[in-house]
């Protein structure tokens, strides 16, 4: 049961620490509202008539899912970076803990933070665009969203692998995050993109997660089974292999037991 205690310990500490950074949490929560309202207002202004509220919903849900996706993808790499700066990482690694436990724990904690964000924004978006009666659909969408985002664990491990090698993960993760946001059809329909970018977007889990969640809220559950998202679980395996490869290379180069 040690692993469970370790995961719970990390998750609790991470969430507590983050929630006490009021500014960071408010920023995270207000980001989707700001951007979606701006986009909605711009759309209305350019077309000369009020846009469909469903577009606002589309954007709000898209932005909040974008945050969850990014948190889940970069959590472990950010944790390593923070740990190096604060000295926590060495203490963590001097405890009897497996690095994979750290990856899972940080991903859980960041996805829980994302979930809190998603619940706040999703309820507002659902009520604004549909009706209070759709709230149950929204709650179901949380489950769908998280299952669909599981392959992001693979991305998280790839980012961690890059993080332990280059140490300075922020510029890289910002670039990758922008790319994921641009090609996954999170904040606009993927069909608006050139075919090659659509292909890349559809080869990553984020597009499907957003589509499934939106479809679940709108009541089109059957869509889920038309998408090849189970195929995307390959990402977890690929992520694990990439991570192991980089970890070994790092250990060999630095002469450490782990990171």
């Amino acid at each position, binding site marked *: *049961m*040690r692993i469970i*205690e*370790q995961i*719970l*310990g*990390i998750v*609790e*500490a991470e969430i*507590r*620490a983050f929630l*006490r*950074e009021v500014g960071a949490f408010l920023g995270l929560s207000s980001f989707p509202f700001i951007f979606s309202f701006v986009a909605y207002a711009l759309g209305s202004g350019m077309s000369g008539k009020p846009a469909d509220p469903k577009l606002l919903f589309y954007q709000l849900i898209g932005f909040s899912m974008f945050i969850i996706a990014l948190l889940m993808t970069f959590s472990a790499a950010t944790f390593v970076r923070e740990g190096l700066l*604060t*000295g*926590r990482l*060495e*203490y*963590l*690694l*001097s*405890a*009897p*803990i497996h690095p994979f436990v750290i990856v899972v724990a940080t991903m859980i904690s960041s996805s829980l933070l994302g979930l809190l964000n998603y619940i706040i924004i999703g309820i507002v978006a659902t009520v604004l665009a549909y009706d209070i009666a759709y709230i149950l659909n929204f709650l179901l969408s949380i489950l769908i969203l998280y299952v669909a985002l599981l392959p992001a664990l693979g991305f998280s491990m790839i980012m961690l692998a890059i993080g332990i090698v280059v140490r300075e993960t922020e510029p890289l993760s910002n670039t990758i995050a922008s790319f994921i946001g641009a090609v996954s059809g999170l904040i606009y329909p993927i069909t608006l993109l050139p075919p090659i970018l659509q292909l890349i977007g559809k080869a990553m889990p984020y597009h499907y997660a957003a589509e499934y969640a939106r479809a679940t809220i709108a009541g089109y559950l059957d869509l889920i089974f038309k998408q090849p998202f189970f195929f995307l679980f390959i990402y977890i395996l690929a992520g694990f292999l990439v991570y192991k490869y980089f970890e070994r290379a790092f*250990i060999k180069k630095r*002469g*450490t*037991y782990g990171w």
Partner: protein
Amino acid sequence: MKIVEVIDLHKEYKAKVREGFFKSRIRNVKALNGVNFHINKGEIFSLVGPNGAGKTTTIRIIATLLLPDKGEAFVYGYSVLKEPTKVREKLGVVLYPNKGFYSRLTGIENLVYYGRLYGLSKGEALRRAKELVELVNLGKDAYRTVDEYSLGMMAKLSIAKCLINDAPILLFDEPTIGLDPLSARKIRSLIKELALKGKTILLTSHNMWEVENLSDRVAMINKGKIILMGSPIEVKQKLRLKYMIEVEVLAEDVKLDNVSIGERGYPVIKLTSEKPTEDLLKVVDEIREKGYQVGYIKIIEPSLEEAFAKAIEYES
């Protein structure tokens, strides 16, 4: 009983040396060059040496944070290379006195976090954390967030953290560095208290006075090699360090050797000696023979700092 055993440790780092904006070359730095020692149960063993001598590298290898290039270390008979998890269970580590915590969490919350990393349940970890904050005298400060802590409070919290898993062996890497004298004193008395409770302690420090007062045995390390080892007294004896003898004579006109005027205005005989008792008796006899009275007698022991300086001087 040997609790920690370090056998022929070698470690080399590759340091990047910049020679221009794009140009750099790799320089090999030998951090350890065949380090051997052991620590007995319940002992405070100190590693002292100049910066870059290899103290921290040795501690990190024992703490399973670094792999040696050659050699082996055992903790409670477990190999740091083959059984790192077992080794980690036996160790409590302080790598920095002022780092390693979530700044937005309280001292207690940080201790609970570390407790759970060692597999304690939340309740157990909390109970243990409360005991430890009492032990290290953090008191109510344990319920403040760490970003409000002074360096001394952080150092106490670091020690509490290293005790959270009730490990029998504690590794302290310069635990009093940067602390004010009062905080450093508190940390030293804590270390002594822990040794009395049966913990085995490996300590590194630049403070020779601290090492001399705390340690049962000392190893002096320089350029990755142990150059001298033993109890502080043995180390000084090995280097044949001399004692300083001071005898004040209560007279105005004294006709003796090695006399200078002391702080109280009386003549003081000052001499260095390898055999202070014999030489002191000779001096006192001579003073009495001449009919003078003795004011005070002082025998100043050579310090470990002198031993350290001499050992390094010999080595280089």
